[in-house]
């Protein structure tokens, strides 16, 4: 099994997420992470789906996804040729005695303190999965009160864009005789 990152352009309509999630579950594929959001075109949303599957089932799931009428395009992003980021926010125990230590550790990871309370610090951190995992390991001794993480978003390197596409094909509708 290997990890694959799929960028899926879909029409921005209600129910599309349900169709995609449903397709993965009924065809027996587990989604590692899924992130969905708007694109430069307000009628199109982009999903970044991370799956852990073999090559042959991946081809099958891609083909099945392509059959969904609201799926416009699917591109598999190669991790060597793309930038992949996740966002994490962690609420760490930190009081007057060890706050300095915590802040130092955060700085090592280029994290950003977004909230401070008398006994906690909330940190925002972006990066790939490895970096976030390492950061959590460093924070754990201080005591993690709460952790939230986004799915991965990814974009290809270089000037090429996957959203450049041909104009939608217009199909003439039969008119009554």
């Amino acid at each position, binding site marked *: 099994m290997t990890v694959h990152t799929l960028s899926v352009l879909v029409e921005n309509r209600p129910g599309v997420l349900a169709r995609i999630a449903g397709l993965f579950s009924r065809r027996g594929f587990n989604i590692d992470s899924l992130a969905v959001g708007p694109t430069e075109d307000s009628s199109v949303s982009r999903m970044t789906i991370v799956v852990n599957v073999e090559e042959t089932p991946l081809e099958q799931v891609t083909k099945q996804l392509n059959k969904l009428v609201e799926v416009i395009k699917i591109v598999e992003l190669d991790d060597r040729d793309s930038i992949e980021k996740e966002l994490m926010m962690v609420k760490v125990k930190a009081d007057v005695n060890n706050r300095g230590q915590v802040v130092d550790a955060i700085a090592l990871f280029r994290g950003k303190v977004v909230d401070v309370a008398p006994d906690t610090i909330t940190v925002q951190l972006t990066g790939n999965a490895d970096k976030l995992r390492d950061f959590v390991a460093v924070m754990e001794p201080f005591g993690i009160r709460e952790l939230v993480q986004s799915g991965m978003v990814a974009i290809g390197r270089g000037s090429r864009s996957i959203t450049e596409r041909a104009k939608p094909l*217009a199909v003439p509708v039969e008119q009554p005789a």
Partner: protein
Amino acid sequence: MTEQSASDSSTGESVTGAQSLIKSLEHAGVKDIFGIPGGAILPAYDPLYDSKIRHILVRHEQGAGHAAQGYAVATGGVGVCMATSGPGATNLVTPLADAHMDSVPMVAVTGQVGAASIGTDAFQEADIRGITMPITKHNFLVTNPADIPRVVAEAFYLARSGRPGPVLVDVAKSALQAQTSFEWPTEISLSGYRPVTRPHSKQIREATRLILESRRPVLYVGGGTIRSRAHKELRQLAELTGIPVVTTLMARGAFPDSHPQHLGMPGMHGTVAAVAGLQKSDLIISLGARFDDRVTGALDSFAPGAKVIHADIDPAEIGKNRAVDVPIVGDCREVIADLVAALTAEQEQGNTGDYEGWVKFVAGVKMRYPLGYDTPPDGTLAPQYVLERLSHISGPESIYVAGVGQHQMWATHFIQYENPNTWINSGGLGTMGFAVPAAMGAKVGRPEATVWAVDGDGCFQMTNQELATCTIEGIPIKVAVINNESLGMVRQWQTLFYEGRYSNTDLQSKRIPDFVKLADAYGAVGLSCESPADVDETIKKAMEVDDVPVVVDFRVHRDAMVWPMVPAGTSNDDINYARGLAPEFEEDDL
């Protein structure tokens, strides 16, 4: 109204959403709808009352759905059914799933509760769009009445183009009641939907090369050839090359049963020749088929020596179950026509395949292991005999519609099919109760044809309420109930695999109900037959009735079994042509 609706298509005339829906259906070319009204869809039934569209009031929404399927297959067009929200819509779930499995073009229109009530667990509310997502090609929920014409146009386009399938249009009652303007679109654009129908010429060249190189090729013909109306091209390809042909359960009629190159149906209950034809081939040319488990048996031992050319309009079918050497995405008719052209050109250069030994081998298997059955020693009626005689008397121009089970297998084997769209059944989903409503739909679509529902006594009791519809609406179908007073296919498995422990398969339907009286109660003609000597006369009597439905209770021997058989999950090499009898192949011929 009909004259107007054509002329005002561009005026954007002010109408209700309900009027817009009916006008849209008229513009989409709908002639017949099967359905039942109810609260949420009620506004649509008012303009429907004045429409040129014929609405056939069925007795159960499942009947409406299967009728739309039968109509679609018999006519080659799109079948339409209509139901209200909640239970009306959920009763369409089985036909939609059935149509999805068998690629039947169909549009289902359902009413939904008012937009403001959606999500509140309102009376008769069910999320039918959510429920049917996995069993439709696509579905829509319409809450804005202005969207109705576009959605209807898209629904029909999606249902019939590419790989055909069912599309559901769920319309909120508030959208039906609101004022809107009607304008039939001149074009639609679905950016994520571009079915490929033209095959790639490189793939055609590659396929041609493999076909000429092979020594033991077979044309594995699936339902896609029927949906793409490729029967003429298929016959050209077969006769041009001399390659043997097998037709799957979904493709019966795509190639004439009387043709000497035809080996019959492959699969779990396939003929020995068709199973051996695939199993021992060195090249499978798959045309609109999908390597279903009922055809392949255990996949790892299916046709182990064969390369595969797989042509299908749905790229997701290619390589799904069986690895492929030459994938061809395209409409079957265009693929076959291109293959014919390429192979003809090769022939003119003197390049032809050498299949002589192979053709001799399969012809020998076909001759040595024909379809057969035992005549019951006690003089009772063999079900296979009934179907043989039905085929002989009613002929290959009739349409035969089956339920699911033993009678379906006997009907596919012992009726001779010569024409496409004359065999209608539930292949993928295996829906018991399919026959009567689907036959009703077929008869509405093809009123001039004789339509026989071949049903089992179990199946018949699931949907026979539509006989009331048939009598009242003047749809004179004929029903041959193959009554073995049991859930016969399950009983056969109990005989073979459960030591004859017949747990819950005895329906006692030679006693209850009385099918002749039941037919009579529905205003149909009821006939009964239990002796081989009476079969011909009974069928002829049924053929003479042309104003009301006929039900014939063929009371057959209950222990008759379907042969040949490959037990589920085993290799096709383990086929038996009768209980405990395996064929022997003279493979020296190969």
